Every structure is written in structure tokens, then in C-alpha cells.
């Protein structure tokens, strides 16, 4: 009699809340992060609605300021940073190494509860009125703001602890739980990107942790570390904050790149164009990403020598991203292309990430950034990477791995429709913002000069389209959980290790041990026997 899958292995709420199964923890993170992105998205819709009309509108400026702060805090710390590692990393890292679980399953469960606690602290701060400082909490305003900065700052700290726990677990697992035959230079690329991400999480997050604690202390107890009246230097806060928050964007994008590296070979039925390029560029991005934080401080008052150094380093990181883009394209070239929803999201990713990345080079040019800093140009740049990059890859991952995780297929035609609407809605929202920013519209303002209204209206229509497309996606996915066609073990014919077991997998991942000698991208070999 076949072993029940992980969803049915144990019943009852306690078997979920006290689980140590990495797959169940992944599902719990999936629910939590989906709620988070819906909350952050709701804030975004409110912001875009306010921006339909310049001048006083549906809300007070301080309310607007609170909303963009909360939008940023929720999106960055409750969605973008944790989502792909805590959902897909948790589910698939052990399977991709041939392991039965992560190195520290109880720390994994704890990381979920720490996340929930941090989210609750942040939400409590929100209900108390929320901060109006922006998600970046800059001194000196953050220390004197009349709004409730401390609980949100502390919530961010706790969310950071969860992130460190995940990273620590992944590092230990990758080093110590690779099954016989899965080596550093043959393991799936998604593992490489998660490993690089985990190093950033473990090293950079404590610095953020300390800087938000200092903000909370300054706000509550007048510690004065960054207070000019006490001789402090507010720019030092920015140094500490961005020392984490710039590498943080690589925490957000590296796992997304790992997802792309898994989807491309499957739907091109071809081995990676260069495994080494993808593996080493992941480490390269993580390393160089640590050397660039000062580009957020170009106009903050740092020395021009320092600005020049950071500008140069910021250019270098693009080299590794470009290596990845060329490698993915090289894998697709002359492949046997199967145009399914996951691949559509990958195409969107490659285009939007490359485009957004180039605008990153543009703002890394100090003299140009003087003009664009704190305008909508920067907002458009990072949303191209975060939505066009990470969220798009996330959606690709959801559709790619949905059959494996839930044992059901999603409706392919709706998948295509949604993907097109997401792509269209996204572009309609953010391309106008490049134009607005270049024309001088500042960010974080509740109003704007009247001549910018047309582009703002276009952007808002795009936002509503994007929102609707995402709601459509969520709806058909939830329906598919119960009514979708039953999925076979390997609906895409992938060589990946996670496909060599039933959909959904049994509690300990594999019915019988697979032979890793047949690598995860070995399309020149015949399909391994499908698991029963």
C-alpha cells in the first residue's frame, strides 16, 4: 500500500502547528506570505488611487505617508525577503539534495513562528497608526516622528531573526545533507542561489537588526546616536541601514534567478548552457552586492571619493547578472521550447529584469543619480526588479511547482491569460513612472504638479490591472487545489531531482532513493522511470 503524501500523512491542526516537516512549514509560509503580499498590495492600491488626483484628495498627507511606509515594510520584510526561500527553498532544498528534511527541522518551525510574531508586532504598530518615516526609517526624522515608530522597527527586527534562522538552516543543510552523489559542482542551481542568499541573510541581517533597534531606542529613549543636536551624524544610520538593505535586494533576486535556472532547462529540454557560470555568478552577486551600499547615499552628504568608489562597485555587480541572463538565453537557444505558463513568466522575467537592471546602472552613475534620486525614476527602477524580477519569478515558481506541491494541475489557459495581464498591467503601471521621475516628480509626496496627472492616471489604471490579474491568479489556484486535474509525478518531463517522486511527495520525500548520477539537467539522457 502506497505511503500517504505529506498533506495526508497526519491529520488535525496540531499536526500542522507542531510539524517539523519542511514541506508543511513551506505551506504555512506560503499562506502567511500570500496574506502579506495581499496586504502590501492593498496599501499600494490605496496609494495609486490617491495619486489619481493632485492636491488634497481622499486622504491627509500624513495618512499617505503612513501608507507608503507600511507598503514598503510589509512588501520588503514580510514578502520579498522571505518568500522564495521560506516557501520554495523550504520545500525543495532538501529534495534537491536528496535529503529527507533540513538540517534543523525544529529551528525551521521556530523560524515560522518568529515570522508570525514579527508580523504581528508590525501589524500592531500599523493599527496604532503606523510610522510615517518610509520603510527606510532615516534619522533624524525617525527619532522625532510623532507616529509609532518603535513597534514597527521592533517588528522588522524580529522578522530579521526569522530570516537569519532560515539562512543558517540552508547553509548547514547544503554543507552536510547532500546525499551520496550530489556534489557541490552537480547540485541544482536553485541550491546555489539559495546558498548565496543564505550567506547574505546570515551576515547582513544583524546589521539591520541593530540599526532598527537604535532607531527604536532613539525614538523611545532619546539615545541620540544619530542626533545632530548631540553631535551625532544621521548619515551613519544610512550606512548601517543600507549595509543590509542593499545586499537585501540580492536576497530578493538571487532565489528568483534560481527559479529561472530551474524552469529554463525544463521547458527548453536542454542542459544548462554553462553550469559553472550560473553557480559562480551567484556567489559573485552575493559578494559584490556587499560592496555597493553607498550608492543609496550619493546625495546624503558622503564624501565624493566614497561615492565614486561605491559607484564603480555598483557597476561591477551587473556583470554577474548579465552573465546569468546570457546563460539563460544560451540555454533557451535551439532548445525544444514548450510554451507553458512557467516559461511565459520566465520570458517576462528576463525582459523586465534586464530592462530594470539597466536602469540600475543608470542610477548607479553618480552624476545622473543627483537628478533622479528620490524621484519616481528610482521607484520604477526597483519595482522593475522586485515585481518584474522577483514577483514574476515567484509566479513562475508557483505554476511550475504547483503540481508537485499539491498534486493538482492549474488551468493552463487561465495561466497564460493571467501571465499576459500581469505583464501588461505591470508595464502600464511602471513605465510611466520612469517618465514621471525623469520629469522631476518626487517620491513619497501625497501630491504632485498638475502637469503630471495624465501619466499618474495611466499608472493607476495599470496598477488596478495588475491587482486584478493577481487576484485572478490567486482565485484559480485556490480552486485548482480542490478541482484541478490530478497531477502525475512529472508533468513537465523535467530531469530535476524533485520530480523523481510522486506528486505530492510522501512525508520523507522519496519513495525509493534516486540515482543522482543522472543529473538534474541531463536532457540528453532518456527520462528516468517515473515514480509510482
Amino acid at each position: 500500500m502506497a505511503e500517504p503524501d505529506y498533506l495526508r500523512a497526519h491529520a488535525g491542526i496540531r499536526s500542522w502547528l507542531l510539524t517539523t516537516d519542511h514541506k508543511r512549514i513551506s505551506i504555512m509560509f506560503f499562506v502567511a506570505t500570500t496574506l502579506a503580499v495581499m496586504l502590501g498590495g492593498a496599501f499600494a492600491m490605496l496609494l495609486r488611487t490617491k495619486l489619481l488626483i493632485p492636491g488634497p484628495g481622499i486622504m491627509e498627507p500624513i495618512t499617505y505617508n503612513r501608507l507608503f511606509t507600511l507598503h514598503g515594510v510589509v512588501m520588503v520584510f514580510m514578502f520579498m525577503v522571505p518568500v522564495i526561500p521560506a516557501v520554495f527553498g523550504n520545500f525543495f532544498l532538501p529534495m534537491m539534495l536528496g535529503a529527507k528534511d533540513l538540517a534543523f527541522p525544529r529551528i525551521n518551525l521556530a523560524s515560522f513562528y518568529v515570522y508570525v510574531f514579527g508580523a504581528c508586532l508590525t501589524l500592531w504598530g500599523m493599527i496604532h497608526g503606523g510610522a510615517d518615516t518610509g520603510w527606510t526609517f532615516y534619522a533624524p526624522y525617525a527619532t522625532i516622528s510623532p507616529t509609532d515608530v518603535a513597534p514597527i522597527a521592533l517588528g522588522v527586527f524580529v522578522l530579521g531573526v526569522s530570516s537569519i534562522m532560515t539562512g543558517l538552516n540552508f547553509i548547514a543543510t547544503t554543507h552536510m545533507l547532500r546525499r551520496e552523489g550530489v556534489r557541490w559542482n552537480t547540485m541544482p542551481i536553485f541550491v546555489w542561489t539559495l546558498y548565496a542568499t543564505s550567506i547574505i541573510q546570515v551576515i547582513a541581517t544583524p546589521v539591520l537588526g541593530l540599526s532598527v533597534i537604535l532607531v527604536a531606542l532613539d525614538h523611545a529613549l532619546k539615545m541620540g546616536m544619530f542626533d545632530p543636536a548631540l553631535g551625532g551624524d544621521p548619515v551613519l544610520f544610512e550606512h548601517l541601514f543600507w549595509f543590509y538593505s542593499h545586499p537585501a535586494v540580492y536576497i530578493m533576486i538571487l532565489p528568483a534567478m534560481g527559479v529561472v535556472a530551474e524552469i529554463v532547462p525544463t521547458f527548453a529540454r536542454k542542459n544548462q548552457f554553462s553550469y559553472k557560470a550560473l553557480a559562480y555568478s551567484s556567489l559573485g552577486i552575493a559578494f559584490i552586492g556587499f560592496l555597493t551600499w553607498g550608492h543609496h547615499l550619493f546625495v546624503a552628504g558622503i564624501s565624493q571619493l566614497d561615492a565614486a568608489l561605491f559607484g564603480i562597485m555598483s557597476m561591477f555587480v551587473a556583470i554577474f547578472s548579465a552573465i546569468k541572463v546570457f546563460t539563460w538565453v544560451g540555454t533557451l537557444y535551439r532548445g525544444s521550447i514548450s510554451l507553458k505558463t512557467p516559461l511565459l513568466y520566465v520570458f517576462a522575467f528576463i525582459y523586465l529584469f534586464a530592462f530594470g537592471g539597466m536602469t540600475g546602472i543608470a542610477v548607479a552613475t553618480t552624476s545622473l543619480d543627483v537628478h533622479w534620486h528620490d524621484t519616481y525614476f528610482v521607484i520604477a527602477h526597483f519595482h522593475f526588479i522586485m515585481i518584474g524580477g522577483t514577483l514574476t519569478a515567484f509566479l513562475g515558481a508557483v505554476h511550475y511547482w504547483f503540481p508537485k506541491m499539491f498534486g493538482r494541475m492549474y488551468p493552463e489557459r487561465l495561466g497564460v491569460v493571467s501571465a499576459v495581464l500581469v505583464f501588461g498591467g505591470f508595464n502600464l503601471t511602471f513605465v510611466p513612472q520612469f517618465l514621471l521621475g525623469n520629469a522631476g516628480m518626487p517620491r513619497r509626496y501625497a501630491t504632485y504638479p498638475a502637469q503630471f496627472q495624465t501619466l499618474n492616471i495611466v499608472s493607476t489604471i495599470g496598477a488596478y490591472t495588475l491587482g486584478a490579474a493577481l487576484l485572478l491568479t490567486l482565485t484559480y489556484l485556490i480552486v485548482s487545489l480542490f478541482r484541478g486535474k490530478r497531477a502525475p509525478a512529472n508533468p513537465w518531463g523535467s530531469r530535476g531531482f524533485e520530480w523523481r517522486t510522486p506528486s505530492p511527495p510522501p512525508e520523507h520525500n522519496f519513495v525509493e532513493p534516486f540515482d543522482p548520477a543522472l543529473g538534474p539537467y541531463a536532457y540528453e539522457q532518456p527520462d528516468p522511470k517515473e515514480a509510482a
Partner: protein
Amino acid sequence: MKLEVQYDSLARQHATARLGMWVFLASESLLFAALFALYAAYRFIYPAEFHAAAAHANVLLGTINTYLLLTSSLTVALSIHETKHGRRRRALVLLAITIGLGVTFEVLKLVEYGLHLRDGIAPGGYYSFSELPAHGAVLYFTLYYLMTGLHALHVLGGLAALAWLWLRLYRGRITSESYLALELGGLYWHLVDLVWIFLWPLIYLVK
């Protein structure tokens, strides 16, 4: 310690726990790194005022604390050594000494804080030491409180862990065959010592 299902052997499980602890220690070091960076920046901006302020640091108490922590690192290492060789009583004594040295450290810290506060040397906006009102001095003392305070919190956590380990050793749950938890606790304790090794010259030896 029970073998968990994802491990082939207890040896691998233990080795993984050690690696996990080292990654955790690396992470904790970066928490202090942020404060070291602030210290470096402000000392660079206010060199004379840092020197003047440091003249009021309690070098006696700070140095005694240095010797206490260095010795506690020895005693915890020896405690693990004795456990491994089956000499439980000696291990218990050494671990108790470690805890005692740590508790003394914390008490002396509190005394030091008390002495400063009595003079009006408090962090940030509460500073009222009229003899040395300069900005740089206030920042030196605020950093002093933040750095030694964060460190003292870590010592407290370490003491709690060591006390729990002492009880487990006493009850025979930690043995010469199975003492991983004690090893991990020892590693954490050494980190606390490492941080202080750098804090001490930066706070107390500014001349």
C-alpha cells in the same frame, strides 16, 4: 541525543550542529560589527573628546572583568575536556566556576554603571555630566552603554545556557559519550569572550 531521520549517523548530526553554531556565531559577530563601525566613525570625528571622556572610564573594573572572562574561557574549555574524559565531578566544579566568573562580571558591570550614573554619566539625552559636556564625550559614553550593554545581555544569555547545561551534567544527561550541548554552549561562551577582548581596549585603553 536521538538520531534524526534526515541524518545517516549521529556523527554527521553532531558535526552539522557544530557547523550551525559557527554560522550563528558569525551572525552574532555582525551585530556587534555595527556598533564597532559607529565607534570607529565617532572616534575619528571626535578624537580629543573621546580621549577626555575615556579618562573617566573605570579601568580597574574593566580590567578585572577582562581577566574574569579570559579565565572563564579556560574553565569552560577544561570543563568540556573533563566531561569527555568521564571526570564528571571536576567538570561540574569547572562549569560552576565559569558561571561564577560570569556572574561576577555582570555584577561588576552593574556596579560600574551605577558609579557612572551617580556622576550623571548616562546615555544620550539623559547625560548630565557637567564636567564634560562636549558632544564627542556624550557619544563616547552612549556608545559605551550600548556596546557593553549589548555584550552584557549576551553574557546573561550565555549564563542561562551554562546554568541549564550544568543541571543536565549534574543529572547525568550530559555524559562522556554525549556532550555536544556542552560543546555548543562553550563555543557561544568563547564568542562572548572574543567580543570583550576587543571592547576592552576600545573603551578602557584610550590614552
